Every structure is written in C-alpha cells, then in structure tokens.
C-alpha cells in the first residue's frame, strides 16, 4: 500500500525526521491561506499515488498567495499522466503546500527489502534529486548499498560509513539520528519501501527530507491498524477496489477479451497466450483459490461493465478448487448476472469431467476448449475483425443477384 507524500512525512516527523513546514490543501482557498501562513515562496505538490508527477506538471512554485490560489485552482481537477498511470492518468484531489527550502546539496536515501539476500538494505547516494535507476546507470560508483542484518539492526559503523560517504561530517548528529530513526520506522510499520529523494542539506547546513515516499507491505496491514486507516480509497480504480473487497485480484487493461483465471501465474500466461493468438486482454483477473458462485458472479459483473469487452475467456486449472465446484459457480453466477458476450471455457484438473458435463448440460451457449491454445484460438476468432466473413457475405450477395 502506497502512502501519500504528506502521510509519509507525518510518519517521518513522528520519528523526529525534519520535514519542511507545510499543510494539505483541499480547495484553492486552503492553498491561499496556507501560503499566507508560511510566507513565500511556497511549493504546491500534487498528492497522487504515482511516481513522476514533477515531470507531469504536478509540482509548482508560487511567489504570492494569489498565485498559490490560482495554481491550486489549475491543479485541482487536473489529470496527471505519468509513465506509471497509463493514458487515463490520475486526478489531483489534494495538494501539499510547503515553504520552499533553500538547497545546498541534494542526497538520496532509501530503505527497502533486497529479495535476493532476504534482508533490508539501505541505499544512499550523493546524487539526489534524480531517479535512483538513472543514478545506478550513469554513476554506479556513487551508489552506497548497506545490507542490514535484522538480528542486530543498523550498526554504528554502517552509519559512520554513510556520514563519510555522503560528506555529512558537519551534520554527524543529525544524520545518525535520522537514519537510525528511519530504520526503526521501517521495521515498526512493516514498510516495504521508505525513500527520501531528495534529502537536502539546506543553506544553514541542516538536513531536511524534501520529498518522502513510503510503501507498506500489504501482507502486514492486518497488524498495522493505524496505517490501514491512512488508505486513500479515492486513489484506487473503483472496479479494482470492488474486486479486492470481493477477494479477487483485478487489474484493468485496454483490450477486448475479458479474462477470468485461477492463480496469478496462470492469469498472466492466459493474457500472454491471447496476445500470441492476436487478441488483446481487457483485464488481469485472478479469482484465487475459492471460486464460489459469489466471486465468479462478481468477476462477470466487473468484466462486463467494460463496454469494450467482446468475449470472456474462463481458464481454470483445478488444484485447490475443484472443476465441478467452478462449473457450478459459473452456472449459479449466470443466473444473477446477465452476460451478453460469448464465453469460452477451459476447465481442467480435479473433477474435470464432471465440470465439463455440467456446463454442456446447462443449455447455455458456452464454447468449451480442451487446452489453452485452442481456447485462445476460439476466443480470438470471436474478437478479430471479421474480414473473411464480410467477403463471403458479399459473394453470397453477388450470387443472389
């Protein structure tokens, strides 16, 4: 779960990490008031859960309160399109208004989990302000990586290394306090990413976290009630949210073939096989281990809401979930949800025969496929633009004439 910048800064501030003075604005007038309080210039930062907002025009500086209000007016309701959001973009609903800091140097600091070694790792660099991927490509020698053994924590010698490598001898006390507190925050709140980019040295030689990003491990939200409350539901796609509450894993894509699959890996492979057959998936949907009539009905409901969907591909490999149960689920679901587009079903695994039999005897028009390549072929035949068919109709017309 991603936190907004202002939420991340609130948390950091609780751990005694210095942040710029600022406040959240929900209306243009709020921005005017906050600007008056803080003094000038101020920076207005769109609070959206996506990276690259600066490049998309979501961060602006105002020199007067009126200008702050006008910029806020323009930013509110604006849709930011970044590499991560896709073409539909995200709406700006909140702004963080902050006093502009005077910057002497920009640094990079983050803590994340290194999957390969299975440990938290601190990543820091003298080159802050640009993306760390860029730094690692252009100046790999300027990246400091310090793995942390969770049993002993962030050790004094590791912090000393940061102090020297980042040229922060003058800010010795500050950097020690900041990084050890951030490590504590990382562990206390089950973070999967905690980042300051940039962490700046100000004109007066103090450290301030100018930008902050925190992501919390979704699997640990159950034990972090205070974090769960911070979830901003307005930032999620409503269909994806609805699916999540129903226990489904749904991601909207822009094709015309709806997919319903059990298991994340098979769901991805199903999208792949559709692409190879010349089709375009409309979504990723993992119905998980429990394909009940309710979850399948919810799946149909969400898939068919998309007017672009021309056909639905159900691909179930019964392992935990038995095929007869899934078939029953599909039939029950079709009683409650009206599906007007053709459905291609591929059911295999535990109790496959019973499941197929149930679908065939239902009297409903399913196309039943034996394996995924056949299913993909069948479904793309439905969704492909019908060139050949038009030709044959023309020919018959001629003959009739």
């Amino acid at each position, binding site marked *: 779960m991603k936190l907004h910048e202002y939420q991340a800064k609130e948390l950091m501030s609780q751990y005694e990490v210095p942040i710029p003075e600022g406040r959240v604005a929900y209306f243009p007038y709020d921005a005017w008031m906050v600007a008056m309080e803080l003094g000038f210039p101020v920076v207005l930062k769109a609070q959206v859960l996506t990276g690259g907002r600066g490049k998309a025009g979501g961060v602006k500086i105002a020199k007067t309160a009126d200008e702050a209000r006008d910029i806020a007016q323009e930013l509110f309701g604006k849709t930011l399109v970044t*590499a*991560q959001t*896709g073409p539909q973009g995200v709406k700006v609903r909140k702004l963080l208004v902050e006093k502009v800091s005077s910057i002497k140097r920009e640094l990079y600091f983050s803590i994340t*989990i290194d*999957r*390969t070694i*299975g*440990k*938290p790792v601190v990543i820091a660099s003298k080159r802050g302000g640009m993306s760390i*991927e860029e730094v690692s490509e252009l100046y790999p020698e300027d990246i400091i990586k310090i793995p942390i*053994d*969770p*049993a002993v924590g962030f050790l004094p010698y590791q912090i000393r290394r940061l102090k020297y490598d980042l040229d922060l001898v003058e800010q010795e006390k500050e950097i020690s306090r900041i990084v050890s507190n951030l490590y504590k925050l990382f*562990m206390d709140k*089950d973070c*999967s990413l905690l980042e300051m980019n940039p962490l700046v040295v100000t004109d007066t030689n103090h450290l301030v976290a100018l930008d902050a990003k925190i992501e919390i*491990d*979704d*699997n*640990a939200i*159950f*034990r972090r009630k205070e974090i769960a409350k911070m979830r901003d539901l307005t930032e999620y796609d409503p269909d994806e949210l609805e699916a999540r509450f129903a226990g489904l*894993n749904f*991601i909207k*894509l822009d094709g015309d073939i709806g997919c319903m*699959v*059990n*298991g*994340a*890996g*098979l*769901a*991805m*492979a199903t*999208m*792949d*096989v*559709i*692409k*190879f*057959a010349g089709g375009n*998936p409309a979504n*990723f949907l*993992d119905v998980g281990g429990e394909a009940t009539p309710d979850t399948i009905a919810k799946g149909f409901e969400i898939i068919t809401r998309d007017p672009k969907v021309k056909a639905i591909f159900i691909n179930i*490999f*019964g*392992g*935990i979930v038995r095929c007869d149960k899934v078939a029953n689920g599909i039939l029950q679901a079709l009683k409650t949800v009206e599906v007007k587009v053709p459905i291609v079903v591929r059911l*295999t*695994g*535990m109790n496959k025969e019973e499941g197929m039999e149930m679908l065939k005897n239902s009297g409903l028009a399913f196309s039943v496929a034996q*394996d*995924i*390549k056949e299913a*993909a072929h069948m479904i793309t035949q439905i969704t492909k633009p019908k060139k050949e068919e038009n030709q044959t109709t023309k020919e018959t017309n001629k003959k009739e004439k």
Partner: protein
Amino acid sequence: MAIVVYKTSRVIVQGITGKEGRYHALACRDYGTKVVGGVTPGKGGSDVDGIPVFNTVEEAVQKTNPNVSLIFVPPPFAADAILEAVGSGIKIIVCITEGIPVLDMVKVKRVIEKEGIILIGPNCPGIITPDASKIGIMPGHIFKRGSIGIISRSGTLLYETADQISKVGLGQSTCLGIGGDPIVGTDYIFWLERFEQDPETEAIMIVGEIGGDAEEKAAEYIKAHVTKPVFAFVAGASAPKGRRMGHAGAIIMGKKGTVESKYNALKEAGVHIIENPGYIGETIYKTLKEKYHFSI
C-alpha cells in the same frame, strides 16, 4: 531417483485441523504420501481420519519421526510455524500459506540459511515426485513419472506445464513451485543443482515470471554448471509496467524484471525459450526428440 522427496518421505502437517490443512493432508495420503502426523496447538490427542494430532511439532517429531513438514497455518502465525519446525529438527519444510508479512520472512530467511534448511515456499503449491510422494496442494493425477524436472514460481502454471508435458507422453522426475512471494526459501539455483546431479532427470523446465532477477541469476548458473537441456517460459510478456500482477514479486520496474531481459539472459546460457505458453509440451517433445535424439 528424483530429488528431495521420495516414497520414504515422512510428512507431518502443521495446521492439519483447518479446512485446507485437513483436505490436503488427506489428499496427500490418498496419493500415497506417508502422512504420519499433524500439529494444531490445542488439538493434541485428537486425530484427523486416523492421523494423530499433536500440540507441538516437538512432540510430533518424537512420536512419529517425520523428515518433512507441510504448513497450512494462517499468515499471522505462519512464520512462527516455520521456525517451530526448524527448532524441532525438521530439515525440509513446505509452506503453502499465502500472505506472510515480508519482515517475518526476513527473520525466517536468516534462520533457515544458518541451519541449512530446505524451505519450499511460502505462497507455493508444494513439491511432488510422481507416483512416490505429493507434498502440497497440486492435483496429483496430472503428473506422470518421467525424466523432466520442473521448477516454477507459480502454482497453477506449474500444473499447466506438467499437464502439457504429461499429455505429449513425457513425464516428470520431481516438480515444485518455489513460491510467488518476494522472499522465498529456495531459488532456482538450488533446484538446478539438484536436478543436474539427479540421474533420473534428463531435462529441466523453468517456469518464471516477470519481476526480480531470479531468472537472470538462474541463467548465469546454467551457463556455468548445467549440462542437461533446459527449457524456459516466463509469464508476463503482456503485462503493463509498474503494475503488480497478483504475486507480490511480479512487477516490472523500469528496465528491470522484463520478459526480454530474462529471455536474453536465458538464451545466452543456451536455454530453449518457449514464448507461447500454449506450446510448452509440444516444444519440449520436439526439441528433445529432434535435437537431443531422445527415444520417446
């Protein structure tokens, strides 16, 4: 021969009295696996269809002498269950549980590395040596004993792959899912090493996913150490960037973790790439027959 699990493997099931634990403990026993005991704190002294249940793993170990533990404990308590198995001397642990907090797995990883434990999972379908022992939640009947070893990140995709391989008349030596979480017990390399040494395994299939660099690392290892034919499919060629596709690990960030980067590394290592998951069985059959002159 197969690897790690055999007809002789003795299994206890932690969380055996839960719905899933019970169902799959019995399904494993039906397959022929020696399920010798179960553990649920507070349910000691009872039994699940004749399988004795104990309060602690320690007690189960003393009374039933197992060498493998299969775990179905819910996410908040699963890391503790793994560590309990380690603490009681079990060396092979299969954890099915999905949704364990990453920081819990950080602790687990540290202990299993120190103790030399083989942990399969978490968030995995388990491991199977066809006709000998099934320790997991996979549908047993799709597997056929044979010469291909399969290592998969995903569960249902492991079934899909094994099914296609069985249908073209080949079979599997041992198959397993390493798990879809960011931190899992074993990586591809661990299993590649064992399959390379196993005389029964004649070819290896890797079923990967976008995200991370485990497939790239596997490629390096294959190049240096594996002499048997290796095949690979990586799921997610059609996945958009920056979106997590179900599994916590399956996400493309920047240029890292893409299907292209994985295929390039694998190709470089001499691995046969199967891009279209509809043709896994067919491609393996043809290649082994025509290129390696297998008598199939």
